[in-house]
């Protein structure tokens, strides 16, 4: 059995007296469709930051395709195949989607330090930009500054950007967050159409989305992994229901 | 050598009073005010002019050296500064540099470019000898006055309700005003006190630096900034320690290695910033 695409081993993160992440271990297999759920304050964001390298763990390790990347900075992990989207869009406001994607592709191809040729003059890159724009329905807005795009399109670009890095593992942080009703199904369709070989870990509050998308669910509560398993089992689990009681359960 | 230490401490205390206002506005109000030196200049001029042209006694001029810059400070704060409280650091820096560039020619225009001297009264001149250690009387006076000012400031900020309200307002102005704190007035008073302290410092410094002239704000701007950088703006204690350290280093440096000159304080600043770039401005470092 090959190594998991992404693995956390005994991750611990303390902030002063607070233990945000408490001995979390789990694995995401290649091609997985896995979701991470948990109530507010469970520590999902901290966990993502630990996995992506934005934050260093107090203890434990992060492995990418079997290799220990705990000591690597976040941009190096991206180069090893770990990409993410942000819960709040992190885009380039004055660059167009085409330019943003072109940049991501360029960097991935190792062309990022070219200082002489005009960006976009390499034909292969143009083809790839075109393909991503089409896949995410961004062709009509490809040359407009990102900040002028409707929120739903921005969210799609957020995902497209991560995909432009051709990751082996993709962490999606609440991709549907804040997206108006009319534009939600675009997001859902985009998620469904993600390449099969990419391992995907989805962090979400939206249970509809989770149960439609994931084949495996991990539940994080107060920094600890409560349980893991198939959607049906998780949905039926008493402990999980108990945790969500008292929370407004938005479908 | 002890003399040098004491001289350094005196210089440090002076720097403290001069820079404390800047430390307060930076640390407590999140505003970078490079024009701070201009208020010091005003204070220095007040003392010099009152003494030289009106024959006023030195001690009497000191409260006015505090008050007049404080009033000017409030006026400027209400009209100009408050528009930039949320602005980027670069904007604040450029704005206050602009003010300094305006203040200096104004001083030049009205008062000429010759330094205005402050002639200390006889009871403040001369030296005292303690067990073979010499210290100028004026230096002792500076240490005393600045020490009192420092203590007063600390008590004011920490022990009084005003201080508590100020800290609350800085942490979250909206919440504070929601709780009934008059944030506007708070900032105005704080700015006034900071400017007033600068003025007092300027008046005290006049003798030490050889008179007040229009280039004073720019010449010492960097020094003030270094004090705030090294001492941090997390409280009066930090600023005090920073100032003393700087004062001693500067005096000792110039005495023992004259060819270094001001280099040493710039060096210390850069090193401090390398080692603790976040920590020194932890309170105000939201950018």
């Amino acid at each position, binding site marked *: 059995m090959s190594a998991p695409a992404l693995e956390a081993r005994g991750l611990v993160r303390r902030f002063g007296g607070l233990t945000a992440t408490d001995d979390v271990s789990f694995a995401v297999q290649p091609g997985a469709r896995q979701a991470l759920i948990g109530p507010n304050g469970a520590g999902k964001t901290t966990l993502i930051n630990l996995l992506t390298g934005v934050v260093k763990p107090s203890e434990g390790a992060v492995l990418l395709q079997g290799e220990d990347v705990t000591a690597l900075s976040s941009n190096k992990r991206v180069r090893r195949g770990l990409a993410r989207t942000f819960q709040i869009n992190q885009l380039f406001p004055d660059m167009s989607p085409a330019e943003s994607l072109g940049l991501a592709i360029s960097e991935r191809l190792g062309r990022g330090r070219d200082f002489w040729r005009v960006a976009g003059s390499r034909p292969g890159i143009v083809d790839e930009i075109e393909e991503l724009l089409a896949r995410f329905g961004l062709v009509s807005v490809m040359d407009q500054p990102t900040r002028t795009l409707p929120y739903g399109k921005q969210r799609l670009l957020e995902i497209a950007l991560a995909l432009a890095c051709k990751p082996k593992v993709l962490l999606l942080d609440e991709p549907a967050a804040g997206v108006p009703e009319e534009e939600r199904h675009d997001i859902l369709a985009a998620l469904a159409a993600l390449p099969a070989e990419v391992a995907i870990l989805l962090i979400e509050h939206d249970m509809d989305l989770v149960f439609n998308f994931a084949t495996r669910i991990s539940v994080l509560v107060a920094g600890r992994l409560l349980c893991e398993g198939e959607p049906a089992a998780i949905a039926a689990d008493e402990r999980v229901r108990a945790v969500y009681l008292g929370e407004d359960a938005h479908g | 050598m002890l003399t040098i230490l004491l001289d350094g401490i005196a210089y440090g205390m002076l720097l403290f009073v001069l820079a404390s206002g800047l430390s307060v506005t930076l640390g407590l109000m999140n505003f970078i005010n490079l024009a701070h030196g201009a208020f010091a200049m005003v204070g220095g001029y007040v003392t010099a002019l009152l003494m030289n042209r009106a024959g006023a006694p030195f001690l009497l001029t000191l409260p006015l050296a505090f008050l007049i810059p404080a009033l000017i400070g409030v006026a400027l704060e209400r009209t100009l500064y408050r528009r930039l409280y949320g602005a980027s650091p670069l904007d604040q820096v450029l704005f206050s540099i602009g003010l300094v560039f305006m203040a200096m020619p104004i001083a030049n225009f009205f008062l000429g470019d010759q330094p205005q001297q402050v002639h200390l009264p006889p009871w403040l001149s001369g030296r005292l000898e303690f067990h073979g250690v010499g210290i100028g009387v004026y230096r002792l006076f500076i240490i005393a006055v600045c020490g009192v000012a420092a203590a007063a400031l600390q008590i004011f900020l920490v022990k009084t309700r005003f201080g508590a309200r100020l800290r609350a307002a800085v942490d979250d102005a909206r919440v504070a005003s929601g709780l009934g704190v008059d944030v506007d007035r708070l900032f105005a008073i704080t700015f006034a006190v900071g400017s007033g302290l600068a003025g007092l410092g300027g008046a005290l410094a006049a003798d030490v630096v050889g008179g007040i002239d229009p280039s004073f704000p720019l010449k010492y701007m960097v020094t003030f900034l270094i004090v705030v950088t090294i001492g941090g703006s997390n409280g009066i204690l930090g600023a005090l320690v920073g100032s003393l350290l700087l004062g001693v280093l500067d005096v000792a440096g110039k005495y023992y290695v004259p060819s270094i*000159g001001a280099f040493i304080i710039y060096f210390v600043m850069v090193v401090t910033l390398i080692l603790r770039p976040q920590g020194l401005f932890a309170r105000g470092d939201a950018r």
Partner: protein
Amino acid sequence: MSAAQTLDEKAKLEAHLRRHERWRWSEIAFWAAILVLIFALPSRAGLLNEILIAGLFALSLDLILGLTGVVSLGQAAFFGVGAYGAAILSAYGLSEPTLGLLLASALAALLGLATAPLLLRGSDLTRLMVTMGVSLMLGELANRNSWLTGGADGLNIAMSPVLGLFPIGFTGQRNAALYSFVVLFLLFVGARRLAQSPFGLSLTAVRENRLRAGALGISTSRRIIGIYALSAAYAGAAGALLAQTTQIVSLDVFDFHRSADVMLMLIIGGAGYLYGGIVGATVFIVLKDVISGATPEYWEFWIGGLLVVLVLIGRDNMRELARRRIKTILPGAAK
């Protein structure tokens, strides 16, 4: 989606990505105009030279501030190193200007490389302080080491003709302006290409969203160090030009005034589209010339006033205004 449509789209896409590549007629006119002025106003060659040098200096700041979003109040450090570097080299026998220029810029670039790591941590305020501190330190060092720098008296130098052919001494004022023009133009072309390259695009990304740039695999620290070193080289070149064309260097090259003035020039002209530095330098120096004629001692007052007004109006507002007006004329390389 038919094949023809996709092809259409690709063409449109490529055209969009390369939209700033071709030089607009307005840009060509801009440079031609400067060249014409140099020949048409030989008596003002000194002033034009000053503008060109300041323009180059401001361009160096645009590379870090406008393009990459890194603030600095210490460009004077590199300007000074370039100036003294060229002067000292010439004093020790290397009096051919172009070689001196290259070496002096390289020296400035090394200094930039060495001090760049200081910029990476901390806030904007830290950066402003550190850069200011470094340039003041250098100024102080220059002051104290008068055996090398001439101290408060400065250095007087004599230059050989450029490339052995064009004298730029006191009799060659117009040649000096031409020399500065050529250097500025060549460096500008380089900067323009750089800004439009993938590297330049990554710097824009660092400016617009550093977090995201890192999340795309960009090693933001290294890019910043790289562009800082380059901008130091440009500033050093400007300093070297000053030394070589005016034949004198003094301690004021390290003055805080220099860093503040160049910042102001860039703000007046607008940061981020590469032409702002030259435009701002022109406005600044011409104004200075005019006002100094009337009230020399109070020039500083008006500069201060201008700064205050500009900041109160808002640099972003200014930039928007400028971008809309000037963009159609001089798109330069910014997006």
